[in-house]
Structure formats: C-alpha cells, structure tokens
C-alpha cells in the first residue's frame, strides 16, 4: 500500500505536484494517468524518497521510504529506462543492486530469465535497444520480489509483443495480491490494464475512481443529426420529449436516444435528414476533456494581472 497525504512539490514558483492525497491499494492495478508534465514522474520520485517533498507525506506500508530496511524487497520501481551505467553489463547492474539489499545472486539469474535477457546478460547496457533497457529496468524492479511495484510509463519503447507482455505481467502481479502502480499518458493503455484510476493534471488530483465507474461516467453515446430543416427538426424532437443540443458545426447532438427513433420522428414530420449517425465518445476524449478543464481552471484562477512591462517576462526566467 502506498499512501500519499497532501504531497506537494514546488520548484521555486512552479508547482509540480499540488496537494495530492490518495492511496494505492494491493491486489489491483492502479493506473496513474495524466498528460506529459502533469507531475507523475515527480510524484513517483517522491514516493521513492529520491525527491524531497515541499510539503505533505508519503508512506510505504506505513513507513517512510528512507526508513525501509532493504527497500528493494518491499517496493520495486521502474523509473526511467536508462537509470543504469551504459558501460556495465546487465548482470552486473542487477548484481550490484541485489548485493546492496542482501538479495541472493540466484535472483539476478531468475529476473534476467523472467524478462528474457539471459542471452545478453554479459553485454554492456549501452548496446541495448530502448525495449531491452526497459526490460532490464523491469528486471531491477522485480529483483527483491517486492509486494509493491511501481512502473513509470512501462510500455514506452516496447514493441507490440513487449507491450502485451508487460500488460500480462502487471495483471498477474496484481492477481498475486501485490500493489501495482503504473503511470501512463495514454488513456487507451490504462483502459486495458488498470482496475483503478488516479488522474492528475498540472499536479492536481482530478479523479480517483474505479475504472468501471470512470468508463460509465465518461463514455457518452449520442446521435449526430444534420438537417436542412433544423428548426422544424428541433421542434419535432422537442414535442417528442427528446432534447437535442447544437454541436457547433450546425449539426445537432441527441443524448440517450436511438438513431432509429430520431429517424422515425423526422420521417413522421417529413423532415429531410443529411446525416443520422450514432457516436461514441472515446475514453481518450473523456480524459482530454477532464485534463483540459484543469488547464483552463488553472489559467483562469487567481486575480488578473496587469499587463507586464516589456522584458519582465524573461527577467524572471
């Protein structure tokens, strides 16, 4: 279990992570979603005690990271693909990490085997592709057989086979009762793997919900209708108790009705239709809408500032 409480990180004026409070529970895959630059990596670095929070607190199973004895046996993390010395072999990279936490050398061979790098174990990491580097990072995370796993954008640079492998891996880790916390900037990726969703934008918590609930709430289906007799169509729909909204490009959008019914209503009133198409808003759109709101909210919050004097903008850096 990972517990964040009011976790905040500021770099000077800039707020990277803003008062985050949520809990990552065992037994499920928790997706950590946000656009690039939303503060996901900073949050993960603070969980690992690499970055010091400006305010707030984060605990691993109730303990601060730097108080953990042999932390790799409690929580394993994949941060950047290349958190390794390029001149060191895969085997030695894992060996030095294992030794520092009293993990037997046998485990090095086991995890190399698990990620499929046994054949290149003695090769220097500098010759590795992005995908191989990612696999080595995952091997390091699995090294101490920890109950908590954290992956920062794990599918980056992986080929389709590798992506499938990591999805299966995360699900099976969660099925074993482990805590799995995985970040991504792709909603579609999360929809396939995560059971629970934490969404942030500009460092703020936007949603902390189960995946099923998020889908139900955000997957809006509607019918798009275009007609040269727009006003008559609107009146007809209104009489039938169907609400239609204008979509901006002259078309109408009708929520919660079937295309058949709208077609029949139009035919009954002898209205010509140019388009009648059922639409499904994707989760990706729902996610973008959610984060776009946070950006807008951010830009409009606070009191308006007077126009800047020339050059003031770049003086502050």
């Amino acid at each position, binding site marked *: 279990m990972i517990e964040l409480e009011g976790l905040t990180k500021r770099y000077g004026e800039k707020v990277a992570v803003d008062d985050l409070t949520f809990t990552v529970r065992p037994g499920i895959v928790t997706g950590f979603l946000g656009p690039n630059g939303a503060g996901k990596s900073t949050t993960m*670095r603070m969980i*690992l*005690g*690499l*970055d*010091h929070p400006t305010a707030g607190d984060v605990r691993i199973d109730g303990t601060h*990271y*730097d108080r*953990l*004895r*042999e*932390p*790799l046996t409690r929580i394993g*993390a994949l*941060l*950047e693909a*290349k*958190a*390794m*010395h*390029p*001149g*060191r*072999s895969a085997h*030695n*990279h894992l*060996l*030095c*990490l*294992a*030794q*520092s*936490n*009293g993990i037997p050398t046998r485990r090095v061979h086991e995890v190399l085997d698990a990620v499929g790098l046994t054949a290149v174990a003695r090769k220097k990491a500098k010759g590795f592709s992005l995908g191989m580097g990612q696999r080595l990072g995952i091997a*390091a995370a699995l090294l101490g057989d920890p109950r908590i796993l954290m992956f920062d954008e794990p599918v980056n640079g992986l080929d389709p086979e590798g992506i499938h492998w990591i999805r299966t891996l995360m699900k099976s880790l969660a099925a074993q009762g482990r805590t799995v916390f995985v970040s991504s900037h792709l909603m579609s990726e999360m929809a396939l793997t995560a059971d629970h969703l934490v969404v942030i934008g500009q460092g703020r918590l936007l949603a902390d919900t189960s995946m099923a609930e998020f889908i139900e709430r955000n997957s809006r289906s509607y019918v798009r209708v275009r007609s040269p007799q727009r006003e008559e169509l609107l009146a007809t729909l209104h009489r039938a108790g169907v609400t239609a909204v204008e979509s901006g490009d002259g078309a109408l959008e009708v929520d919660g009705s079937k295309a058949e019914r709208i077609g029949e209503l139009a035919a009954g009133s002898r209205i010509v239709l140019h388009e009648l198409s059922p639409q499904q808003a994707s989760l990706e759109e729902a996610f973008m809408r959610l984060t776009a709101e946070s950006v807008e909210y951010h830009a409009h919050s606070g009191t308006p500032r007077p126009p800047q004097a020339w050059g003031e903008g770049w003086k502050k850096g």
Partner: protein
Amino acid sequence: MAVTQVVRSEWTKIRSVASTVWTLSLAVVVTIALGMLISALSKAEFDSLGERERLSFDPTFISFAGMSLGQLAMIVFGVLVVSNEYSTGMIRASLAAVPQRGTFLFSKLAVATALALVVAMATSFAAFFLGQVMLGEHKASIGDPGVLRAVIGGGLYMTLIALFSMGVAAMLRSPMLSLGILMPFFFLISNILGNVDATKKVGQFLPDQAGSKIMQVVTPVDDETPYGPWGGLGIMALWVIAALIGGYVLLKRRDAQ
C-alpha cells in the same frame, strides 16, 4: 541496511566499469614513466648544477616528478567514480536501493579510496625505486632518513587527491564541470600561485602544494614553508574533509537527479 552489503555492492560497481581500469592504469604508467624520464634528465644535468642547487638536490622528490601529471589521472578516477552515477542516471537506482544517503556515499568513497590507496602505494614505491635506478650514483636509499616517509607519503598524497576529487564531484555532480575545475586547478593554477612571490604565501596552503611537502626529503636551501611534511599532509587532509562534508551535505539535501 548493513554497511557490508552496500560496500560489496559498491565494489561490484567499481570493478564492472572500464573507466576504473584505464584511469588507474594511466595514473600508474604516467607517474612512473615520467618520474623515470625526469630522474634520467636530472642525472645528466647534475654536473652542471651550482653548489646551491646541489645542496637542494633531492633524488627522492625527483623520482616523484611524474605525479604532477599522474595525479590528473587520479583526479579523473575520483571524479568518474562519483559523477558517473549522475551522468548515467544510475543515481536513481542506487538511492532507491540505498536510501540512507550517508551510507551510500561513504561506502562508495571507502571502496574507491581503498582501491586508490593500493594502486597509489604500489605506484609510489615503483616510481621511487625505478627513479633511483635512473639517477645512478646520485640515488637515495629507502633506508636513508626521511625517505621511507616520503615514499609512503607519495602514496597517501595520490590517494588524498583522488578522495578530494570524489568530494568535489559529489558537490558538482557533473563530470565535465568537476574535471573542468579540478584539472586546470591542479595542473596550472596551483603551480602558478605557488611559484609567484606575491601569491606564494596563499598558494602553499592549497591542497596539492601542502600535501606534496611529504614527498620532500631534502629541504630546499631558502625554504620558508611554515609546516613540515606531516603538517602539510594534514593541511591537505583538511581540504579533503571539507570537500567530503560539502559533498555529503549537498547529497543529503538535494533531490537525486
């Protein structure tokens, strides 16, 4: 977190990168070869020296002449051992594995310093004996007063140079920045400050100027250095301690990147 585990881990790290081998090999080869060359040249020049110079003639110190260049390889070793962690991103994996930053840093420094000490001692003895061979009849003997102290001191000097570099690299993190400051400083600036009359009084308290006093057996005729061989090494040790404290404090306080 057992310190022995972290020390073992750091030993695996240091022995598994190529830069360890080439920097230390370069330090050995350059120090010995240049020492032999200058010893041979000094022997050839001895007859043309004036009486004053002959009184100051220090065969032990001459055989260590290669250290002025060899120490640069030691600096590179010290800088890379620490700054490699930052330039490669390894520091994030390292501190996630060992979040007790003091344990991490001092285990790393202990391993690197122990290795540097072994190499530096062997280099110092080799440079002395081979240098004396080149000096022929003007040679010093290891049994002469002060000579053994100077030879052991030479090994300690090179070790402290490496350790000082590690402390500086822990503060600056970037290998290029660390080398860009340390190399010209030890190769040029310190020498200039130490040899220009106006700055000599300050220059002689710089780490390399003070520390290299330990390698002198014959005190130059008009020498006014206010400290002896061990005093000089002590001054150097104070510089090293300051650099290490700086490195530790900054590592402790900063975010790991």
